[in-house]
């Protein structure tokens, strides 16, 4: 009897041991696999940074624009690769945020410089200085990374351990070689000069101020502005959720509760601190089966805009989902479409009510523009379009550039076999500024 019990226990013990060993093996395999991935990304990132600084060196001595363009596009690719790899390592964002930003900016500025070269404009003295600085910073980064890598091999540090420790003990992590190195780099990266160029990550974009002017609005005025904007006869109670001084347009964030307890359609909206304009509004009501057509929806949206003082707004495209239609409107100045002055309106197709409004683009960009006469004619612009594309429509439009500027361009709607495109030809230089592909599906139109 007792023997039997012992035997049973022994069997159970062996069983548990085998199960445990198997679990250990599996866990070991998984973490090893993960570690290998991390190591590969880390090593590849170092190689990227090495090549970035080598290429930045080469740019100093090349003379042909063509070679420059090749080098710059290479730097762009390497920078984005390195950035991507660095951000997928298990290091807390706080220790790598400036380094990743540095890599993004190097990639972005390289694209801007490549474009400049393609335009036949050589880099000026200042830009060459910037490149030298960037070369030195990436050289510093490469040195630190190479040192870190050597140190890690020596001490047998595994990257995967970082994420395991991070949540528990800040002190311990701080001592970790990898984190310390990146913290050092971060400190140094704080010093690199502000980069201003024609690209989306340029510092000047962050500093742009809205064209909106008007007197400062106090908190007690918000309810009046909000009710006037909503304008549906209901009374609301207001709840100020926050003040956003850091946003592109400083604004209050508010929530409106209907006074009527049976009505639970909460509305949230944001109102600018200056001039008291509604930046955006969302009505969170449930949407039932559609009664209105898409076309009626767009008409409702247009009327809604006109009632709130937004005149000359032209619908540019729309997309339908969940029983609602979102339509983009652009301002039209003497039949020229001003795309940066963008307002989106969302209409619920059940009762034909506007449930969303978003006018940041309009409020930030709209101003009394003095548009130059186009230097090239419609016909001349048309000659610059690829022959394979069959042009159907053309109009003048103002479009935003990557660097946050605006250009006047001819917008051609063109067809290539089964695909539709919008092609933009700069009306002053004849440069092909942008190509958008128009994707039309059941839900509406999508621009790529």
């Amino acid at each position: 009897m007792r023997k039997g019990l012992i035997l049973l226990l022994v069997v159970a013990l062996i069983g548990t041991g085998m199960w445990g060993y198997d679990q250990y093996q599996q866990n070991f395999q998984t973490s090893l696999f993960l570690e290998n991935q991390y190591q590969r990304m880390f090593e590849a990132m170092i190689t990227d940074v090495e090549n970035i600084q080598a290429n930045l060196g080469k740019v100093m001595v090349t003379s042909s624009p063509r070679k420059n363009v090749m080098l710059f596009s290479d730097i762009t690719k390497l920078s984005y690769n390195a950035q991507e790899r660095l951000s997928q390592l298990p290091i807390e964002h706080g220790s790598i945020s400036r380094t990743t930003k540095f890599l993004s900016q190097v990639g972005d500025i390289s694209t801007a410089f490549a474009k400049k070269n393609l335009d036949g404009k050589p880099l000026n003295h200042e830009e060459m200085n910037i490149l030298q600085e960037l070369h030195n910073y990436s050289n510093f980064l490469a040195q630190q990374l190479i040192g870190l890598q050597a140190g890690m091999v020596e001490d047998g540090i595994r990257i995967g351990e970082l994420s395991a420790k991070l949540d528990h003990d800040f002190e311990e992590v701080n001592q970790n070689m990898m984190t310390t190195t990146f913290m050092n780099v971060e400190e140094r990266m704080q010093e690199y000069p502000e980069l201003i160029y024609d690209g989306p990550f340029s510092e000047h974009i962050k500093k742009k101020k809205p064209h909106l002017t008007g007197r400062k609005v106090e908190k007690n005025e918000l309810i009046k502005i909000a009710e006037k904007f909503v304008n549906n006869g209901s009374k609301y109670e207001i709840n100020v959720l926050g003040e956003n001084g850091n946003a592109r347009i400083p604004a209050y964030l508010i929530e409106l509760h209907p006074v009527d307890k049976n009505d639970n359609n909460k509305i949230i909206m944001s109102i600018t601190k200056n001039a008291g304009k509604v930046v955006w509004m969302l009505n969170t009501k449930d949407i039932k089966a559609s009664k209105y057509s898409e076309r009626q929806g767009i008409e409702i949206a247009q009327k809604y805009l006109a009632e709130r003082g937004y005149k000359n707004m032209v619908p540019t495209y729309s997309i339908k989902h969940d029983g609602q239609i979102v339509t983009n409107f652009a301002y039209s100045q003497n039949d020229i479409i001003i795309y940066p002055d963008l307002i989106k309106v969302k209409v619920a197709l059940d009762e034909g009510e506007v449930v969303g409004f978003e006018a940041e683009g309009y409020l930030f960009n709209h101003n009394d523009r003095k548009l130059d006469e186009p230097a090239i004619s419609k016909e001349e612009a048309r000659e610059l379009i690829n022959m394979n594309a069959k042009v159907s429509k053309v109009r003048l439009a103002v479009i935003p550039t990557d660097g946050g500027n605006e250009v006047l361009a001819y917008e051609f709607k063109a067809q290539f076999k089964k695909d539709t495109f919008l092609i933009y030809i700069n009306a002053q230089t004849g440069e092909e500024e942008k190509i958008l592909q128009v994707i039309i599906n059941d839900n509406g139109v999508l621009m790529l």
Partner: protein
Amino acid sequence: MRSKLLAICLVCILFFAISIYLIDSAFAKTIFWGSRGEDVRQIQTKLKQWGYLVGNADGIYGAQTYRAVIKFQRRNGLTADGKVGPQTKRALGIRAVAIAGKYNQTVRNAQQKLKQWGYYIGAVDGIYGPKTREAVIKFQRKNGLVADGIIGPKTKTALGLGGDAAVADYVATSRGVSREKDVRLMAMAINGEARGEPYAGQVAVGAVILNRVRHPSFPNTIAGVIYQPLAFTAVSDKQIYLEPTETSFKAARDALNGWDPTGGAIYYWNPITATSKWIWTRTPTVKIGKHWFAHE
């Protein structure tokens, strides 16, 4: 009086004859001794290539050209009269196309292409003039073609003109594009991170993800941002893989359509559950539901 009329008539006839001769030589079908111009240059170039002519292709039909033409005609079984007519031209491999001083669609297409590629400055008028010739030759040199100024089949192919029979059926790009995958991934993240939050808070979480995509310090894709190690707790505790609610999908779409309750925030945290000490060094700008949002 009569003699005066006769004289006028004579002058008229003479003038007419001369102009006919001039027009004829300008658009000559036949080129002979004394002819000048692009056509002659072209013939000379061809003759040179085939080894009949030594010397410059100067565009003037002189003694050397005459001898070369005769030689060519003899070898090719043509009447050896030194006149370069349609037959001789054909034998030389010169096509009437792209030479004549008249409007021609091929020339127009070529001009447009050459202009787009920066070889040609001038009007796209479909008339083959010296500027067009110069541009064609420049293009041919750069592309390793025989620099004869003729827009022949090889030059046409190199210019990317005509004939695209290779692709049997062009598939519409729209079939390879889906925005639904972005919506779904966003909805998963919103559901995992902000389920049970007020609607504005759910849209806000989606907006933060998109603000990060656009921010230089973060990855450049939605997936890159969401799956960044240590970034979102829902990813590390696998809540992201729960089936998203309908509201999460709606919030994801609103965020993708540009609604941003945070006005550009790139961080948020729940002050009750946040484990990262670093996040507390951020200054919150907006509070929606349980989450605090920060811009820097």
